[in-house]
């Protein structure tokens, strides 16, 4: 219910690809709030947090770019030592594997972005441990 949808883009790993995608998004007035780019040999995947992923998807597909969506869980944690460990411990107890994880601190609030194949179980586990999973609006308004 409150997982957050990212815009995911598949590109060839060669110079100019990132600039090409970000130019298309900029021209369409899409504001990028968070981004991660990962490469694996000949190709890479860019993930964007944007206010309207459907619009971003449409813009990119119209230009022939291969785009898809990816659901993640943004978990708010305390900005102090051991906070990430609380999240990791909680998921480990349930035998839930983390695919990709990243995190940031904005305006004094720490957020861990959790990617997993078992998003519903992960949410339930986190919530039951008293951890707060942010909604899309909350994440965009940080």
């Amino acid at each position, binding site marked *: 219910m409150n997982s957050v949808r*990212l815009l*995911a883009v598949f590109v*060839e790993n060669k110079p100019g690809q990132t600039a090409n995608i970000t130019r298309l998004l900029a021209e369409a007035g899409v504001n990028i709030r968070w981004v991660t780019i*990962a490469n694996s040999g000949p*190709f890479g*995947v860019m*993930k964007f947090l944007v206010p309207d992923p459907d619009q971003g998807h449409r813009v990119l597909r119209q230009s*022939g770019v291969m785009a898809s969506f*990816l659901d993640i869980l943004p978990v708010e944690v305390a900005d102090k030592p051991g906070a990430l460990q609380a999240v990791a411990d909680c998921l480990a107890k349930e035998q839930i594997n983390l695919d990709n994880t990243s995190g940031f601190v904005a305006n004094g609030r720490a957020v861990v972005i959790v990617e997993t194949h078992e998003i519903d179980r992960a949410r339930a586990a986190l919530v039951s441990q008293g951890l707060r999973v942010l909604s899309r609006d909350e994440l965009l308004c940080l």
Partner: protein
Amino acid sequence: MGSVFWQYALAMTFANTKHAYWKPEEEILSRTELEALQAERLKRTVGRVYDAVPFYRDKFDTAKVSPATVVSLGDLARLPFTTGADLRSIYPTGMLAVPIDETMRLHTSSGTTGKPKALFFSRQDVSNAAELCARSMVATGVTKQDIFQNMMTYGLFTGAFVMHYGAEKIGCLVIPAGPGNTERQLMLMQDFHTTTIHITPSFALYFADMLEKRGIDPRKDLALKRAFVGAEPYTEETRRKIEEGLGLRVFNSYGLSEMNGPGVAFECQEQAGMHLWEDHYAMEIINPETGQVLPDGERGELVLTTLLREAMPIIRYRTRDITSIVPEPCPCGRTHRRIQRITGRADDMLIVRGVNIYPQQIERVLMSVPKVGRNYLITLEGLDEMTVRVELSEFGFDGQLEHVVALQNEIATQLRAEILIKPKIDLVPPGTLPISEGKAKRVIDNRKL
């Protein structure tokens, strides 16, 4: 009561006979009869070319073969080969075995460089070509009730004509639609309830795509039953895609302009190899490197000798097509031996790290993996480094890098099983690779060996 039931059952058995024949006496004769017929026709052909075609007289003399000593099929292996280069060298009329006013039709092969191959037909040759197409089409279940929409190019290319005549011999309603003009093709199919089409694989895939986009379900909205797909090579996986997309059965066939075009070999309803019409063609499989004849079942280059051609008989033609003979009898009852689908061209063969590889093997693997698109490019560089660039399909990306990496590894593993080496796989977004027009360029060899 019981006897009525049995009469009924017996009647149904005959009414539903899966295998109809065009001319049973030519199709289910015994192997002994067929081989005797071949030997007699071979003898006559060899005598005729020796007398009438200086090109062959010279070849036979050089090979020290006297036509009088050619009496059985076993003598075939002593005869000299004819190559595509030979056919070009005698262009335009050097291989005619009849005066030119006895010829009735000229076709040419699709030569991409230089002069094409000129192929002449006498009245009887045109009739024989049509006869074989009629035989082939009946083997797939065509009857005079069928509506045949011929979506091939009518022109110098033989393909459209001989199938057109074959369908007319059967008594089908023939619609000579020609290629292209998707709108009109669809209109004809809808208005005249086309059951049978003759089409190239690329147009078939395009057509299927168009139907899907318009929400037309061929199973409900069209009367299509079968397709004869040809003129370009295609894999078994492409066949399945066409069958799925057009809601019909695709029958594989084999033909080449040098041997009248389509109707040299055709699948029957069993769809397990193509019957090569041995009363018209003597076939051999040879090792393309040594020219040695190989036993049935072994893979090599198909070599064909015309047995009934009047205007332009051809002896031991090196087709460059790689296949093998299926010697086992077919449940359909036809005694003409079958060949496997063509798995490559002798000219296309790549040797990578000492392994013989045909690009079609790679294509077959790629097309069998879900989420992989149709476009690919094989590059060879440095010292035998092979890279296969292949596009993801439109729905091949779910947002996760890990899944693309896993797909890449799966392709590499499957290719390793097929071609014994593990190439580097580059998955690229759809639309990245150049779109092929006509014959696709699938291999770039930049090796410095």
